[in-house]
């Protein structure tokens, strides 16, 4: 019986091997892009995830784009919009040669409809940030429209460049809207069968497996050179790397820092190119300023001085990252190179604590007015870099006379409870800044969610001067003046040290070396922003 059994297995294997060998010759492979998890929707009205942007960039168009040099360029527009003197009215002119994938022309009515859908009452559109600032939307003719803002906001335009401002076809969604009782749903038909005006047409979406797109030959910039693109879901960074190494994935975007060496090694064996470029995402450890311990500026500065930022980047990240000193990255035009930098200096940290009156008790932990210098660091589980930050911080901070506890939570609890209800002492996570230096939501005192129900100022930072500057920064059009505004904000933040700015990420993308015109874009436009001009030489 056992022998029969073995024979069958052997036969199957034999047959299979033969088949594999003949299979390899026949298949013409599309370009395969690996994504770490499936997306939720392909309807840009509802998009929230970065991975969705990767795909939506292929299917849809925006009014303007942000290019790899971080300049605005028109996409659906014939030219960049005209802005009125008072900065309130924007006049747009659309190109006249844009067609949706079903052949219908894209007009100003579609843009207006997109705006109306975002603002419609019966839906769960996640954010209306851009659209709520609109006072009036006037279509003047088929290709021209004017938007008037409620108040001046020089950062408003940037938002038009990203996925949640992509233009949807009125003639298709209107049907769904009417059929759904005046509601478009995130799970509606359009979410799974999107029709856009971008360089690629939607073909197929197999849940949790892949999304297949094919070139749209009537794309207004001309038919894309790569005929078929597949976004393939691969469980996590481990399987992405394995599938990339095994040749099942051609493009591995957003690789992990610790995989850099491995990718470079792969480059020796395979025809690939590895891009490493600065990103706007930074890791930070926030002090909860509601906690009396952290109301003491010297404590915050001391903890900053006592963390070996450079060594962390060198040895834990393998150099894939750049020390952060403020929330604006060193490569931004608004960066202030003269901010206070907290280079590793435990002695200075101890001095600061002594000065502030925190003196060592019997067990070596500092005490002031009966309060022990003891606190807890929180982050989410499952992130090894953040966990390493914690254990290193613990070791270093305990050297200067603190007692550090670590308590990590699964992501849902950390964000939904610990962060949202500001229950932390120190919390470690990452923000992605826009490339405009405005960060009102993080630093304005009116953006403290525990007091005002809105904003992301979980730290509880409140500084009158910073409030004024942030407000001024939104009103000021001139680059030079804005530079001085944001430089001053950074100066204050680095002095006040409301958090530890740990490091700015470097993004890693590995692509086939024959891929031409791949231009990494670290803004929220993502790397597929110019997919229409990609070419693949074999």
């Amino acid at each position, binding site marked *: 019986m056992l022998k029969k*059994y073995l024979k069958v297995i052997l036969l199957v294997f034999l*047959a*299979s091997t033969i*088949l*594999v060998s*003949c299979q390899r010759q*026949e*298949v*013409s*492979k*599309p370009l*395969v892009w690996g994504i770490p*998890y*499936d997306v*939720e929707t392909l309807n840009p009205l*509802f998009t*929230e995830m970065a991975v969705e942007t990767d795909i939506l960039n292929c299917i849809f168009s925006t009014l303007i784009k942000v290019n790899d040099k971080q300049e605005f360029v028109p996409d659906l527009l014939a030219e960049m919009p005209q802005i009125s003197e008072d900065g309130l009215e924007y006049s747009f002119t659309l190109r006249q040669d844009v067609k949706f994938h079903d052949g219908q022309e894209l007009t100003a009515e579609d843009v207006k409809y997109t705006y109306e859908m975002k603002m419609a009452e019966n839906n*769960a559109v*996640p*954010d*209306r*940030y851009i659209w709520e600032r609109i006072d009036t939307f006037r279509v003047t003719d088929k290709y021209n429209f004017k938007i008037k803002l409620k108040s001046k906001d020089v950062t408003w335009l940037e938002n038009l460049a990203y996925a949640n401002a992509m233009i949807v076809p009125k003639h298709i969604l209107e049907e769904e809207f009417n059929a759904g009782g005046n509601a478009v*749903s*995130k*799970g*509606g038909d359009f*979410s*799974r069968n999107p029709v856009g005006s971008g360089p690629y047409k939607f073909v197929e979406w*197999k*849940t*949790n*497996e*892949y999304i*297949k797109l094919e070139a749209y030959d009537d794309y207004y910039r001309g038919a894309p050179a790569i005929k078929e693109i*597949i976004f*393939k*879901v691969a*469980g996590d960074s*481990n*399987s992405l790397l*394995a*599938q990339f*190494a*095994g040749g*099942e994935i051609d493009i591995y975007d957003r690789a992990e820092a610790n995989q850099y060496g491995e990718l470079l090694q792969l480059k020796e064996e395979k025809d690939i190119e590895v891009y490493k470029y600065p990103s706007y995402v930074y890791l930070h450890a926030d002090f909860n300023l509601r906690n009396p311990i952290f109301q003491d500026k010297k404590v915050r500065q001391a903890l900053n001085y006592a963390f070996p930022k450079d060594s962390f980047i060198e040895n834990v990240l393998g150099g894939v990252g750049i020390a952060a000193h403020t929330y604006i990255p060193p490569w931004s035009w608004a960066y202030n190179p003269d901010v206070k930098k907290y280079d590793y200096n435990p002695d200075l940290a101890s001095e600061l604590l002594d000065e502030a009156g925190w003196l060592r008790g019997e067990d070596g932990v500092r005490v002031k007015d009966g309060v022990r210098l003891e606190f807890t660091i929180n982050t989410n589980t499952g992130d090894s870099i953040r966990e390493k930050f914690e254990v290193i911080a613990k070791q270093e901070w305990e050297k200067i006379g603190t007692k550090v506890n670590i308590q990590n939570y*699964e*992501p*849902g*609890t950390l*964000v*939904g*409870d*610990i*962060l*949202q209800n500001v229950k932390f002492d120190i919390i470690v*996570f990452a*923000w992605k800044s826009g490339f405009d230096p405005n960060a009102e939501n*993080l630093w304005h005192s009116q953006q403290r969610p525990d007091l005002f129900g*809105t904003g*992301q100022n979980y730290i509880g930072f409140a500084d009158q001067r910073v409030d004024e500057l942030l407000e001024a920064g939104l009103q000021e059009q001139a680059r030079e003046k804005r530079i001085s505004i944001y430089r001053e904000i950074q100066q204050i933040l680095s002095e006040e040290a409301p958090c530890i700015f740990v490091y700015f990420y470097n993004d890693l993308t590995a692509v086939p070396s024959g891929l031409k015109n791949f231009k990494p874009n670290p803004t929220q436009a993502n790397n597929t922003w110019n997919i229409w001009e990609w070419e693949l030489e074999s």
Partner: protein
Amino acid sequence: MKKKWLIRLVFSVLTLLIVSILSFMIIEFAPGSPISRYADNPKITSADRERIIRHLGLDKPTSVRYFIWLKNVLRGDFGLSYMTGRPVLTEILARLPATLKLMLFSFFISVAFAIPIGIYAAMRRNSLPDVLISFISYLGISLPSFWLGLLLIYIFAVKLQLLPAGGQLTPWFDSSAFPLPVRPAAVFWEHLRHLLLPAATLSFGNIARWCQYLRSSLLETINENYIRTARAKGLNSRTVVYKHALRNAITPLITVIGLNMPAFFAGAVITEQIFSWPGMGQLFITAVFARDYQVIMGITIITAAMVLLGNFLSDILYAVFDPRVEYRG
């Protein structure tokens, strides 16, 4: 007899009801909510949050929502997923085939290996092969599946490039590229080659566990009086094992396998993740982190039904394999 089955059925429904109430409460009570994902999104205002809460119906009290949920479930409607806005059943059905495929395949492999190995080990008790088998079994049990999975991927997908590292089908696989006579074989191999590594990962632990159970229970029955009598009568020891001992020894294994039934539906989270298998395990864990109450409740209730079914079936199998047991309960 019929009355007993009926009572069992009534109790099963009651159990399901209790499970649904408890689960609903547990899920609600957990920190975080479906809208906590917006906490770190700078563009979402409190007005947006309130609007979404209303839209999802989360503004109603828990008890009201439970009854709404129950009413809909009785009509076969598990509600809409908060993550994708699609019906929970649609989401489940999109993943169930992949999970069933992997689970059934690995189940048959496990049984096919575990039973002969278990018998062999029991018959050669304490011999070198037996010691080796238990050695390998415990290796299989101490080796976490993520480790075994990564190891297999490294060897077969990255180094040898024989088998794919993930997914259940190559997205650009086109069976029409093959000449008609070999087409079925090509399709079969395309499915099989994706199954081999994840199934091996899953099966290793199962084989290890199951063959140890079987070995142990076989050892016990082999020493029962009636078996010894049979052997004293001069019956061939192989016959004794297959005909008499195995029949009795199999019941504990049935229990264990019955307990495994819900996994056919729920999938295996870690293995699925490592091998990018588009199954239920991934859906559940994403739903947990996103606090997608609807999806979690849907999966929980269907899993509970599977648990009841699994236990029910193993009770029936008991009665079949062990005639001494009169079915009770």
